[in-house]
């Protein structure tokens, strides 16, 4: 019995150390504009990594490489051990059911109600047909983000914060194992930003996801990060916990923290 418990603990530890996303020395250019020069990043299971950096440094490009929206010019991106660049269409589709992506704007389908937006991945990706099951999942995830009252509203009737919540709900409804957030609090007031950051944390705990959060919002980073990496001119310049980096002597690193501390 004692051995069995020990093995379970070991398994848990191994699982926790499992690298789910492995970005290895990638670079990416658009024409003559080199956006990523040399990026390497490992995301472990259950971990929240926040990528900080000024606008136009290639943060979004990095996470778009993870889901195969963009292909790096050099280097590899492995998700659950498989190279994304070598995946065929079906493998890529399968990968995308395991990796959720929250866009900066929420990217809600504006010709559909909130309910239809949430049903879309359930019926098209998970191929669910049972009406009761679909309704249950939609209502459960909308309740989780506090938007149950807006279920039949059109995206144009929602505020910026509500759109982000609905976008998060639509991504979470397929229960992905990895979440990629592209500037989830940009354009929101400080109170709503804090609410969204806390919601990200709550959803991570509830659905046990591993996340990469792209942001330049220090409050969001403080709330959500297990580990922070700082990006500048297409490469990472510092890495550590929020509190470690806060004490850094590096001028560039300090410039991020000075605004909030």
């Amino acid at each position, binding site marked *: 019995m004692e051995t069995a418990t020990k093995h379970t603990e070991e398994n848990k530890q191994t699982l926790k150390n499992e690298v789910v996303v492995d970005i290895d020395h990638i670079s990416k250019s658009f024409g003559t504009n080199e956006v990523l020069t040399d990026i390497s990043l490992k995301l472990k299971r259950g971990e929240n990594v926040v990528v900080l950096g000024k606008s136009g440094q290639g943060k979004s490009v990095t996470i778009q490489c993870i889901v195969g929206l963009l292909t790096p010019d050099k280097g590899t991106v492995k998700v659950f051990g498989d190279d994304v660049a070598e995946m065929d269409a079906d493998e890529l*589709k399968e990968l995308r059911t395991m990796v959720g992506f929250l866009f900066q*704007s929420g990217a809600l389908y504006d010709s559909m109600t909130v309910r239809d937006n949430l049903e879309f991945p359930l019926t098209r990706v998970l191929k669910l047909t049972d009406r009761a099951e679909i309704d249950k999942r939609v209502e459960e995830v909308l309740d989780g983000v506090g938007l149950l009252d807006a279920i039949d509203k059109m995206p144009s009737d929602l505020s910026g914060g509500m759109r982000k919540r609905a976008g998060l709900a639509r991504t979470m409804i*397929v229960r992905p194992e990895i979440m990629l957030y592209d500037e989830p609090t940009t354009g929101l007031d400080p109170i709503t930003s804090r609410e969204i950051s806390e919601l990200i944390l709550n959803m991570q705990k509830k659905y046990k996801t591993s996340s990469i959060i792209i942001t330049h919002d220090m409050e969001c980073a403080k709330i959500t990060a297990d580990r922070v990496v700082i990006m500048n001119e297409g490469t990472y310049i510092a890495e550590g916990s929020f509190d470690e980096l806060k004490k850094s002597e590096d001028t560039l690193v300090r410039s991020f923290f000075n605004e909030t501390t």
Partner: protein
Amino acid sequence: MAEQVITGYKRWLEGIGEQGVFFKNFFRNIFRGGFEWSEFVRQCYEIGYRSMLLVGITSFIMGLVLILQLRPSMLEMGAESMLPKTLAVSFIREIGPVIIAIICAGKVASGIGAELGSMKVTEQIDAMEVSGANPLQYLVVTRILATSLMIPLLTVIGDAIGLFGGYLALNFTDDISFSLYFHKCIASLEFIDLFPALVKTVFFGFAIGFVGCYKGYNSNKGTESVGLAANSAVVTASLWIFVIDAIAVQITSLLFYR
């Protein structure tokens, strides 16, 4: 200067290549499982039903104006009784399909281009793709098939309304019964007038849907690109309609009038 010409030529060739790939992906996605029937029906309603009033008014005026313009010349030649036949043949063979297709290129191709373009700008197409759904199947296949089906239907309705407009115009000055007018129209038409005209409208519809979808789906990620996609869709689709018409007339002549 020479470099600019070469770059422009290269870009043009790349554009053709991209359209070829888009065409291939469209066909591949028709036969993939899970056809989006509800979206297809919605698009048929949006494209067909919502264009009906515009097509109806345009066709009515065209029929009316053609009779008013033709009458003095025909009267001069003592061929007034040939007016229903002349209108029927010219309207059903050529004027109806081309005018209706051009009207639909303005309304439908620009609408599709702008809609997909704005979906691209607001990252909705990317969101669909990264969710594991198939945006080509949902957005492109349904729209192209809907235009390919609806433009012929709109043409049939527009032709009928155009002939009715001609009947009213004829009655401004002459007195001809409704049944006699339509008997003369129908009697003057043969299979080779109706069938090729209807077949070419399927290609017109395809061109309108394809160009609208291609321009919108491949627009850049800036707000100005939405306008560019809509504008470019109308111009290119209109041009394609004339090219297809010219080819269709040649084929019809070779097959039926030798």
